[in-house]
């Protein structure tokens, strides 16, 4: 079961450039709005046509610009779940499903509806269904067409937080037995972390290499990825030595992970998670003695968030700010006057 997408398409603001290869299982594509995620899915489904490239699904060529192959969406067998579900409003729930079945089977339709709690709604129109019911119906309809892969286009982003997790679970249960590739597009880091096994990111139409999800969040590799995973303190750098950089945006010299001279030119920036900055020069539980950078700051402003304090500190001698998140549980209140903050050299991420 292999799924290969290598496409190029010139868009108004940038060139879409996607190169991915995946197997069965969920691959998430995380990216901001306008990054080209949805356009990628539309090219895969055949709704939009790339300028050039190649798409194949399990050995079946869906698109090949060099051989002038461009299957219409109808022939691609690609399931596409739209954000607003795109149900057929003039058909009942049962009709929505049966129209896409190759072999009509009313008994099977009713069985599906009952299995997913829609048994009493077979004759209802989509307008009469709740958001959750619509989503389940759209899922049944998509699976009834027997797709060879599934594309999920921000399926949860329009939902309220409290029903979101329930719907996520429902969708995942329905996809549990689907042993083919699933591409899941989202801008929400937590959603992606919960649902996907592997993650690729998209910025300005460029698709990054796919990585295991924990690695993706623990070690962002580009400036765009750092922003997407919430590693928000970012500065451009010049190298001073093998383990020291000058952070241009912050006017600071910082210890960073040891990097060979020839490796250094790969990296153009650094990033620090807000949660990795502390107020202490030493932690009692520090396992390994690490070099801790000391940063002098002028003024700090604190915002109270649900579970943490978000403190923005202005670095001495600059206008630049560093943002840190302090756990409210560990620290019931934030000190009035902060003059120094600290960050371990090992916690600084080098970015390409």
């Amino acid at each position, binding site marked *: 079961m292999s799924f290969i997408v290598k496409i190029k398409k010139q868009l108004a603001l940038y060139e879409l450039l996607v190169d991915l290869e995946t197997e069965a299982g969920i691959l998430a594509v995380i990216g901001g709005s306008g990054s080209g995620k949805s356009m990628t899915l539309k090219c895969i489904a055949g*709704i939009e046509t790339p300028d050039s490239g190649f798409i194949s699904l399990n050995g079946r060529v869906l698109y090949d610009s060099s051989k002038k192959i461009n299957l219409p*969406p*109808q022939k691609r067998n690609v399931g*596409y779940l739209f954000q*607003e579900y795109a149900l*057929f*409003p*003039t058909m009942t729930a049962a009709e929505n499903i049966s129209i896409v079945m*190759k072999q009509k089977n009313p008994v099977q339709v009713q069985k599906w509806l009952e299995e997913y709690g829609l048994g*009493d709604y077979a004759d209802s129109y989509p307008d009469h269904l709740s958001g959750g019911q619509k989503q389940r119906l759209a899922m049944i309809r998509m699976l009834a067409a027997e797709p060879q892969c599934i594309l999920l286009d921000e399926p949860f982003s329009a939902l309220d937080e409290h029903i979101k997790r329930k719907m996520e679970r429902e969708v995942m249960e329905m996809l549990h037995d689907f042993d083919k590739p699933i591409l899941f597009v989202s801008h929400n880091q937590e959603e992606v972390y919960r649902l996907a096994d592997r993650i690729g990111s998209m910025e300005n139409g460029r698709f990054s290499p796919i990585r295991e999800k924990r690695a993706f969040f623990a070690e962002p590799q580009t400036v765009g990825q750092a922003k997407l995973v919430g590693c928000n303190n970012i500065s451009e750098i010049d190298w001073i030595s093998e383990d020291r950089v000058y952070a241009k945006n912050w006017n600071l010299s910082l210890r960073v992970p040891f990097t060979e001279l020839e490796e250094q030119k790969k990296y153009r920036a650094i990033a620090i998670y807000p949660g990795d900055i502390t107020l202490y020069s030493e932690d009692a539980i520090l396992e390994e003695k690490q070099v801790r950078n000391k940063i002098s700051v002028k003024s700090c402003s604190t915002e109270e968030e649900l579970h943490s304090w978000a403190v923005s500190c202005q670095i001495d001698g600059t206008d630049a700010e560093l943002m840190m998140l302090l756990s409210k549980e560990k620290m019931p209140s934030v000190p009035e006057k902060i003059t120094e903050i600290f960050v371990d050299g090992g916690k600084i991420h080098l970015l390409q």
Partner: protein
Amino acid sequence: MNLQNLDFTPLWITMKTGVAATFVSFFLGIFAARFVMGRKGKARAFWDGFLTMPLVLPPTVAGYILLRTFSTKRPFGRFLANSLGIQAVHTWLGCVLAATVIAFPLMYRNARAAFEQVDENVIYAAQTLGLSERTIFWKIRIPMAKPGILSGTVLAFARAIGEYGATSMLAGNIAGRTSTISQQIAMVLQNGDFALAGFWCLVIFVISFVCLVALNLFGEKKSKGKKHVFHRKNKKTTGSL
């Protein structure tokens, strides 16, 4: 004016013309809407302009063009008459032709607006689900556009039964054959018969008004019908163990 002696043929001619013109406009309008939606840029602007012209032109100009086209003294009209036996000038067919040309843009524009309002994602979803373009058009796009198509049909009918300018030039006012109500009104008014003219005015007024009110009522009923919800929701079996 005496109702018992009144010749009702103008009413029947008008209704027959209206129904025939609406029937033709219905299909042509939907076809044209689909055609224009498939064009892009300049071609689209051109075709839309061309197809909308009868709506803005004085009907007499449309009548002049039709007359010059279908006149048996000219090549195309002569060809139709000689080879196919079709004659539009001074015949009922002329009534239908004139009414169709004038009523067509209302059908076309309403149908197109209705098609364009259909959520494109629904169409994309249908495509990815494997439904053919033909199925999508007839089973999804048309039903979703139904309110707009219906209002286009009713407006086209109302316009067709009231057509005067183009009809009088192409079909003329021949009693019992091409004399529609609107032509009858003009004629009897010239003869000074205000009562009879008023009667026919009332007839046209009532028919048109009934059409429009029926259209509004239908639209309202439709949106009310959508609210009867959750009819079987509370049906639970209460079995005892």
